[in-house]
């Protein structure tokens, strides 16, 4: 089997697994890193004029960048898109010099990548390779920048599809909503024809995330991405190019192509491939996949959590029991908070802010552990006696759907939560908070309209995009960012707080970063592997390892510094590199028909029994069945039959056997090997006799018995000889 990762470590997952003839894509996430290099856009898709009014103070300087971006975008219509990436990156690094420092080597590798991997972009390579002074040059080459016509396009880097034959991909499995943002590109912009599987909640939350993504970062009305994106380019250069967001129509088309599954639902494809989703415990509907090909079992362990007392269904380790190979992805980085500590900090921070009549901004997606956190926060505020003053607001284009939908998913929740619906009560607390008569929590599509009229201070606002580049949080930061009594609280993992806050450096708002991460850490992963049967291979992202040995195995970065053992081999994968793994002997599932099974004669050797078998294997409807062969088939088979004898020749037995069939006057001569010229040093025993007037000789050697006789008596002599052995 071969595993290739299409996105860098730390980004959402996108891997391609080739096992035997099957090509399986594991998740299809969209790189988020370049978001931080982009300018701020307020409140999603709104026009330029509006933006400038509200945003003059902080993004005044960012206007230049956007022009640069626009210029590139114009050019892309005539040439291609990749220019944007370079110019955006350049511009942003010039604009925010601290970024490079903050993001360290990662940012460097990002800048070099497009340049090195692109072949047709000499101009771009030289651009990104040269100094800061090239930005105006870039703008000049693309024509006269015009501010009034500027459309702020966000450009995204796709997984590196260049080395993959997308048309040949048989199946895509999606583990949870964090890892499917690039799916519409795959289904709507390439010639991908495979099937896609995800659990029902993953599809719904994924759809919501896509809608949020398009609302925040989508292209403006002037141009459709279908016109801009050259499909061939996308496939060939996906790793290098930058592409605008897809459209709402694409989302719908893409979502319709995903086939919903439930946990432990067996999906059988092409006869030899079986897929089963198992609960990962990370969020509603989050799944790990067991991929069975023939008798080979591969477990794809994506974002998983063994954290106690969360609302999603518990981590189901049974998929590891039969897995020989485990692909582990999306692990919790080292040095993260423990969840419980983190929650306490979040509660305290919120309570302290509310107590001083400040507002709290929590940029996050409305899903996942937020539902649990909300309960803890609500409980804490209750204990502190702050409940009466507080109002929760959820602001997102999908807030309404996300909150309501999550509460009808009791089947996907932990047993503790499932019990709630039998009362019946809404399993998640926000169901009760949102009830109209209570008015404790409210949801809004955006900060425009009812949000400001309903507003009761102090207020806790959830929503927006954690990158703070677009969405309602941008407006709210302008509104409340100047007061230090207000707090902005980062809780989402997988994001760069420093980069997020760069455009808002001068704001007085209190910042707290308590990134709650419930994903498995490498230590937990090792524990989980040890708890269930030890798989033969475990593949982990390179960031979870300390070093890589020459034989491809790795030392893990856990506290025990686990290395490969004879039973389990740990190795690592990273982007742009494919890992080859040998597989054990392969087996196919076959059904043995009753008729044929009746005829077999097993012989026992200790615990194991053997039985020779011959038949005709019919392959029909993707199922193989072994049946008795026809007359002609049997005749044909007999030509190939290889019989086997086991055991050692035993002279007394042979003699007894011969006597039994009426042989008399046997002449037994033993010869030392040296006497015989031909046979060299092999000692042999010769038994000579006559039967029915025909002379016959049996020669016994250590590993060989030879019968020399006339054809007519052979059938008689055969039995006594074979009786000394076990024959098949």
């Amino acid at each position, binding site marked *: 089997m071969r595993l290739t990762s299409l996105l860098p470590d730390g980004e959402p997952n996108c891997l391609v697994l080739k096992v035997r003839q099957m090509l399986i894509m594991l998740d299809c996430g969209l790189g988020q890193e370049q978001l931080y290099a982009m300018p701020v856009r307020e409140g999603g898709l709104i026009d330029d004029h509006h933006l400038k009014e509200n945003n003059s103070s902080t993004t005044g300087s960012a206007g230049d960048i956007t022009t640069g971006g626009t210029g590139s975008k114009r050019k892309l219509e005539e040439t291609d898109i990749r220019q944007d990436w370079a110019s955006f990156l350049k511009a942003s690094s010039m604009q925010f010099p601290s970024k490079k420092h903050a993001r360290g080597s990662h940012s460097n590798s990002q800048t070099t990548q497009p340049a090195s991997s692109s072949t047709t972009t000499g101009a771009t390579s030289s651009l990104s390779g040269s100094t800061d002074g090239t930005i105006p040059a870039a703008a000049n080459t693309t024509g006269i920048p015009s501010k009034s016509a500027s459309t702020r396009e966000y450009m995204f880097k796709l997984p590196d599809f260049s080395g993959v034959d997308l048309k040949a991909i048989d199946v895509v499995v999606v583990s949870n909503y964090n890892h499917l943002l690039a799916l519409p590109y795959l289904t709507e912009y390439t010639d991908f024809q495979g099937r896609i599987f995800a659990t029902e909640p993953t599809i719904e939350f994924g759809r919501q995330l896509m809608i949020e993504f398009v609302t925040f970062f989508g292209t403006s009305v002037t141009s459709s991405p279908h016109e801009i994106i050259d499909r061939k380019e996308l496939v060939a250069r996906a790793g290098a190019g930058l592409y605008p967001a897809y459209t709402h129509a694409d989302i719908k088309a893409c979502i319709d192509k995903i086939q919903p599954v*439930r946990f432990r639902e067996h999906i059988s494809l092409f006869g030899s491939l079986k897929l089963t989703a198992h609960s990962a415990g990370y969020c509603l509907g989050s799944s790990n996949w067991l991929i069975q090909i023939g*008798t080979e079992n591969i477990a794809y362990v994506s974002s998983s959590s063994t954290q106690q007392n969360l609302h999603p269904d518990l981590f189901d380790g049974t998929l590891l029991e039969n897995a020989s190979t485990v692909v582990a992805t999306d692990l919790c980085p080292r040095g993260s908070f423990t969840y419980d500590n983190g929650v306490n900090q979040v509660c305290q921070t919120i309570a302290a802010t509310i107590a001083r009549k400040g507002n709290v901004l929590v940029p996050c997606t409305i899903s996942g552990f937020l539902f649990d956190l909300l309960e803890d926060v609500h409980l804490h505020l209750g204990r502190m006696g702050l409940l009466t003053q507080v109002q929760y607001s959820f602001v997102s284009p999908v807030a309404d759907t996300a909150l309501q939908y999550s509460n009808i998913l009791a089947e996907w929740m932990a047993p503790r939560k499932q019990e709630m619906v039998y009362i019946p009560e809404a399993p998640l607390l926000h169901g009760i908070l949102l009830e109209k008569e209570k008015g404790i929590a409210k949801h809004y599509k955006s900060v425009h309209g009812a949000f400001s009229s309903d507003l009761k201070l102090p207020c806790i606002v959830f929503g927006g995009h954690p990158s703070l580049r677009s969405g309602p949080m941008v407006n709210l930061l302008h509104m409340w960012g100047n007061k230090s009594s207000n707090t902005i609280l980062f809780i989402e993992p997988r994001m760069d707080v420093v980069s997020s806050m760069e455009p808002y450096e001068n704001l007085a708002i209190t910042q707290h970063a308590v990134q709650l991460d419930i994903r498995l850490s490498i230590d937990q992963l090792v524990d989980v592997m040890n708890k269930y049967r030890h798989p033969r291979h475990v593949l982990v992202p390179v960031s979870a390892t300390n070093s890589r040995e020459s034989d491809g195995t790795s030392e893990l970065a856990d506290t025990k510094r686990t290395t490969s053992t004879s039973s389990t081999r740990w190795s690592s994968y990273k982007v742009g590199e494919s890992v080859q793994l040998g597989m054990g002997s392969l087996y196919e*599932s076959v059904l043995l028909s009753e008729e044929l099974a009746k005829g077999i004669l097993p012989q026992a050797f200790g615990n194991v029994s053997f039985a020779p078998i011959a038949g005709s294997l019919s392959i029909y409807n993707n199922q193989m069945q072994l049946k008795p062969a026809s007359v002609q088939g049997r005749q044909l088979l007999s030509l190939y*039959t290889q019989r086997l004898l*086991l055991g050692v020749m035993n002279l007394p037995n042979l003699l007894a056997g011969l006597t039994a069939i009426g042989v008399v006057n046997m002449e037994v001569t033993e010869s030392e090997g040296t006497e015989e010229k031909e046979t060299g040093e092999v000692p042999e025993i010769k038994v000579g006799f006559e039967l029915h007037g025909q002379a016959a000789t049996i020669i016994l050697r250590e590993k060989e018995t030879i019968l020399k006789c*006339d054809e007519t008596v052979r059938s008689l002599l055969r039995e006594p000889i074979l009786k000394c052995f076990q024959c098949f």
Partner: protein
Amino acid sequence: MTIQIVPLGAGQDVGRSCILVTIGGKNIMLDCGMHMGYNDERRFPDFSYISKTGDFTEMLDCVIISHFHLDHCGALPYFTEMCGYDGNIYMTHPTKAICPMLLEDYRKITVDKKGERNFFNSQNIKDCMKKVVAVNLHQTIMVDDDLEICAYYAGHVLGAAMFYIRVGEESLVYTGDYNMTPDRHLGSAWIDKVKPDVLITESTYATTIRDSKRSRERDFLKKVHDCVASGGNVIIPVFALGRAQELCILIETYWERMDLRVPIYFSAGLTEKANHFYRLFINWTNEKIKSTFVHRNMFDFKHIRAWDRAYIDNPGPMVVFATPGMLHSGTSLELFKKWAPDPKNMVIMPGFCVAGTVGSRVLAGEKMIKTDSFTTIEVNLQVKNLSFSAHADAKGIMQLIRQCEAKNVVLVHGEKSSMGFLKSRIMTEFGIPCFDPANGTTVSIETSHVIPIEMSASLLKQHLIRQTETQDPGMTTSSSPEHSSSDDNSEQSDFKTPVDIRPSDKVLIQGMLVMDDGKPIRLEDADDVLEKVGMADHKVRFEVRKAYNATALRRAVENAESNERQGSSAMDTDESQTGNSYQEWDSDGFALNLVYVALERSIGKQIKVVRDEEDNSIVIRSVKIRAPTDKDEFEKGGLLVGWDYRDEDLATRVLSIVTLALSANR
């Protein structure tokens, strides 16, 4: 192998569903319902059939409940708490949620109002539900190592499921009650093509083919509207959950559209709670409700208010949904008693009524109904029956059989007469056996037994290569054994071209089955296996003398040849020639050549036959046919055939060909 099915209830009957199944050595109880037409011990299934000693936990591997109707789950608390069954119980999430409510509701009516004994109490219901494992649709549950169950959507009521049960290679589908047409709040039943050995299906509407849904709805609404317009009261007996919700949606939208002001009441106190269940289990309703629930929850009714007993004397028309649905007790019976004498009023029976209940007698058109020894109701009001009960009709049942490709069908949960009709239809249309066992009688169904094994992929590959190599490229299918045995050969060659394109679908396989305790049975290459276990094989070689009459042989051959060349005239010249050349004639070489030609012709296509001129021998694998080499052998004469025991079968074949080739009787 045999699958045995015994209905303890619902055999040629509706109500008290309880079917025992033995499959692959596992005993499973499908549903555990009560009969609402009886008030004595016939109410519950006869559990003593399972075990005389009451050791039910030991006897049964699991109990599966298809949906929350009491004729499918009503006896469950009795079975677990009073009979002592303590094993696995499976049902879907909504069933687990709603079932205890209905049980409690029914218990109140039977015990608290009627004062009956030998009935479970509230605590029993709670304890019973704690033992239940809730399952999700399509989720495969391993009850133990061999027994696997999987639920499919059945549509009948919220959370209704069909269950696919598999042990080894034997499988069974139990439908419970199902509906093949979607209604206002539920989707239609659906199942994979699971090809079960047995399909146990309900057959409530075995003989009915209902008209379109829409016209039935229109009919229902018109009747209600007409009645209230003329000042009559409408009573619609329903069960609190299920059909009631669909009718509520229907009436609610109609009232809104027609702007009617006539009050609608829903009797049971359950309503609010029931609707809350529907809101939480939106996922189990149909697509339309699912997609709109965020904006408008269909189960928030504007026009429908809770019923209060005081309203019974209110003047003027009203529409009342009253529980229970079969008019056997509670509010619906009370209202019916009150309104029955007035012909302006109307009762609409939207569901099925079990024989013996007041409902069924109303439907039968009885004009004087005696409910108990003190009361007799005079029935003057209009009685309408609407087939709104969400069961599959005959068309739906046939559709399901086709969908899952069942090999046998067992009909339950229906009236005997209509079952017979459906049974004959199934047998003629699908050509599969169909049964309709009565309660307590056993149906045994033989299943073909196949054993799953694992075959080494390299072994398969090896054989596939051999198969393609040994056959002419154009002969791929025609020379495959099954084909040549069944088809006429001449026909084969005539229609060769289209056949050529198809890949071979039959491969001859030889190998060694390895049976190791606790591991799957594997089919491997024989040599590899023995090497792995470390068993050295002993070589046994046979060398036999094949005597033949050289002179007779030559003469025979020459005769045959000359016959071919010149006809039968040239006998004399042959005679003289042979006489001369016999001196230095190499008879063995001649014989070997003959043998070689014969071998090449017969088995040369499959196996390489080597003629070694130098060594004066023919070699086929380990089989070696040679001329005598030493003096001793010369004296005896004949050819020498040697082979390893490994190739015993090949040698036998070769020997027979040699015998034929060397025989003088050509």
